[in-house]
């Protein structure tokens, strides 16, 4: 708003000055040689140019938004929510990551109990014990996912390699646990 009024003011002055110079040619020579005066005007113009550019930089172009009308019904895929939860919990350093990981562990523990108690013909209580002890599987990562202490079972070389890969230990353990459960349910 201020810029526009300034511009208008400048324009009025410019117009009057132009008229003056046209009708009183003598002034032109006088004005032309006054370097200081000219520099003041030029500085003024330069500052205004910078102000105008900054005003542009600050205001975004505004226009109407249009919705995606071409889309039909998009429904989620079965299991997509767990995939997304695993992805987020795998990378995350957010405050909620620990809660998310616990939630996923609890969910998968329920699945594990049903798989084990069905396949190995055990009661849910026995299955939970197996999970806690890590004795339900040979895979150390899968066992570790449910909290069993099997740190001794992984060779050092593999552990070094693990730190170089860009996968968090949570993701690795989850992946192994899921693969083990699926394999067990198909047997």
């Amino acid at each position: 708003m201020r810029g526009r009024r300034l511009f208008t003011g400048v324009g009025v002055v410019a117009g009057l000055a132009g008229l003056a110079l046209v009708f009183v040619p003598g002034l032109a020579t006088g004005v032309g040689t006054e370097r200081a005066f000219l520099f003041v005007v030029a500085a003024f113009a330069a500052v205004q140019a910078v102000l105008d550019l900054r005003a542009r930089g600050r205001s975004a172009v505004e226009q109407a938004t249009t919705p995606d009308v071409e889309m039909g019904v998009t429904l989620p895929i079965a299991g997509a929510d767990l995939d997304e939860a695993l992805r987020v919990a795998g990378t995350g350093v957010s405050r909620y990551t620990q809660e998310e990981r616990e939630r996923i562990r609890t969910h998968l523990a329920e699945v594990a109990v049903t798989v084990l108690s069905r396949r190995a013909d055990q009661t849910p209580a026995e299955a939970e014990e197996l999970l806690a002890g890590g004795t339900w599987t040979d895979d150390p990562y899968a066992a570790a996912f449910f909290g069993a202490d099997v740190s001794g079972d992984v060779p050092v070389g593999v552990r070094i390699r693990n730190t170089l890969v860009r996968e968090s230990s949570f993701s690795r353990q989850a992946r192994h646990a899921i693969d083990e459960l699926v394999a067990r349910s198909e047997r």
Partner: protein
Amino acid sequence: MKTRATNRWRGVTALSFAAGALGIVTSQPAVLLLAVVGVAYAAYARLAPPPEPTARVERTVDDDRPDRGDAVGVTVELTNDGDRLLPDLRVVDGVPPGLAVVDGSPRLATALRPGKRASFSYEVEAIRGTHDFEPTQIIARGVSGAVEHEDWVRAETAIRCVPRLEPLDSFPLRKQTVQHTGQVTTDVGGGGVEFHATRRYRPGDPIQRIDWHRAAKTGELTTVEFREERAATVVLLVDSREPAYVADLAGRSAVENCVTAGGQVASALLATGDRVGVASLGPRWSWLAPGLGRVHRTRLAEELALAAGFAPTPPDEQFFPGLALRRVRKHLPGDAQVVLFSPLSDAYPTIAARRLEAHGHLVTVVSPDVVDGETDGAQIARLERDDRLRTLRRAGIRVLDWDPDRPLAAAVTDATRRWRQ
């Protein structure tokens, strides 16, 4: 109607000031001259006339009662009803939510002289249900683009798609001990269809039932008795809660599969003289009491196609499990069997099925398997669903695990064979 300044020309005067400053400092007249460019476009931005909201919209649909899967052509015609040029008119048509555009574009940008028309066409794919078009979004700009008007214009149009009930030869029901004629066979003789035995004629027996061949041969009057076929009362219950709205990798919806299968089962059962009704197990309630006959069949097809309870889009409303089950039980006739259609994507349908069974309604579950792919989530979902199937079977409930890539009839045949054993 909304008017906004786009601010796209903001700062163009900077060119003029820069040219002025540089031209003065360097005493170079050619540089000074360039100031007019900034002024010219700044003036253009301000002086160009703003747009007028004078566009009229008319929409026509080439088939407002299509079959499922048909491509329906939509043509939109715009007219400039004003007396000024509309130099920059942008239109986005209100395609009904749930319908996908399969050809062309529902959008256009054009310029319209006064009285002139412009039209554009596109195609949508028809899906089950009633689809109302939403208002058309019209965005009009002045020729310099400095000012924008936004408005929504109504053009009432609707598409209705009611698919016929697909055929199915037969659907086996569970044995029940009730007294009407229909499909469930028992060993009590009475009026019915399947031959059972003959006995001596009793005064009052219907004349059509007299065995005239024997009478002609031996002179005895005997009555033919048929095995009484009992009519079942069946309610088809479709799981329409939010977790049931899942799709396979090809985008096919589990609820669509359930509704189509429901229509097929209804078709089979109505043909054998059973009374069939439909209900929705979800936050959007729908109920059609069991009945018979051609009129009822039509009403059933319409209910499945159009009722909110079976809508193709997932619900926003909250679901109250206890309330919903109580409502279903309140409406269910005491002797009704239930066929529950659900993808079993969470635990609730198993609970509902077992509760209904415990309250005396024999339950059969038809479950389309839409778990697709080999991601971690899909594998776990498959495990969980298998476990639910097992839980239901262990509770004595019949389960038809159906792969939607195969026809339902094939799955029914296989399952019937298994259930007979």
